[in-house]
């Protein structure tokens, strides 16, 4: 049981979390733009998340909180 919470207002859609996720279950949400004009990161398959925090470790904007 684990999940990530993306603070969308600070996400810059850089994709570093997408690249870092070992399970490849994070993607940039191309259907939405945040107030900064970026496609925010989104956990696409929440049930698969193990809470390894790789995404959060690589996020330059500390936009990701991880629970496990």
């Amino acid at each position: 049981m684990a999940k990530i919470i993306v603070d969308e207002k600070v996400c810059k859609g850089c994709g570093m979390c997408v690249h870092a996720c070992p399970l490849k279950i994070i993607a940039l949400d191309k259907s939405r733009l945040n107030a900064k004009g970026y496609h925010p990161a989104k956990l696409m398959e929440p049930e698969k998340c193990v809470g390894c925090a790789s995404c959060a470790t690589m996020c330059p904007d500390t936009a990701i909180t991880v629970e496990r």
Partner: protein
Amino acid sequence: MAIVFQKPSTLTDAPMHYCPGCTHGIVHRLVAQALEELGVEGKAVGVASVGCSVMCYDYFTCDMVQAPHGRAQAVATGLKRARPDNVIFTYQGDGDLAAIGTAETVHAATRGENITVIFINNAIYGMTGGQMAPTSLPGQITQTTPYGRDTNTAGYPVRVCEMLSTLSGVAFAQRVTVDNVKNVNIARKAIKKAFQNQIEGKGYSIVEVLSTCPTNWGLSPVEALKWLEDNMIPYYPLGVYKDVEEGVKK
């Protein structure tokens, strides 16, 4: 469920102004985590240098001083000599530390000034729009080396850790990077150690962090990580260049 990763309390809520994928943000977090874990935020004073990271005074919750370009370690020297019990760190880019501030860097190091230096080496001037840095690689194309850095005319990149590790005042010098999770964790430990050394009075400690500048390198954030791995790490080998266990102060 418990929170296993969150923003450290030592970072403010101000959104960082850095470009998407810029690794300054990661290093900021590592510095903030060190201050938090060591419990020294209340007596820490950071010195912001001129360059992209100049506004880091808005991001760290400790007291902050903004230094003139290149002078961060002189300012840090003044802060530390005035209040030796405080924990003083500088956060500097390559232009600041290794070009305009070379004298201040070398002499703070050789004095064994008991401060912590966080050095961001991204091989380019970011804030002014991508000019050649003292650490730009041979052949690297920048705004001011449009045909690639020609070592015959522009000279060779400065290897800061190697240079400083020859000085007796340096207690600790390590080069790290933040291109993947494993390396971020190594960088985290190195930065924490550089602060711990100061608390223990060991003397000058520097951590050089190989970093990316996707915007001025003209690459995506993920491509920039790859460029760093393929080009910077071979020229700037990672590792501990100096670690004087007993410190340099008698």
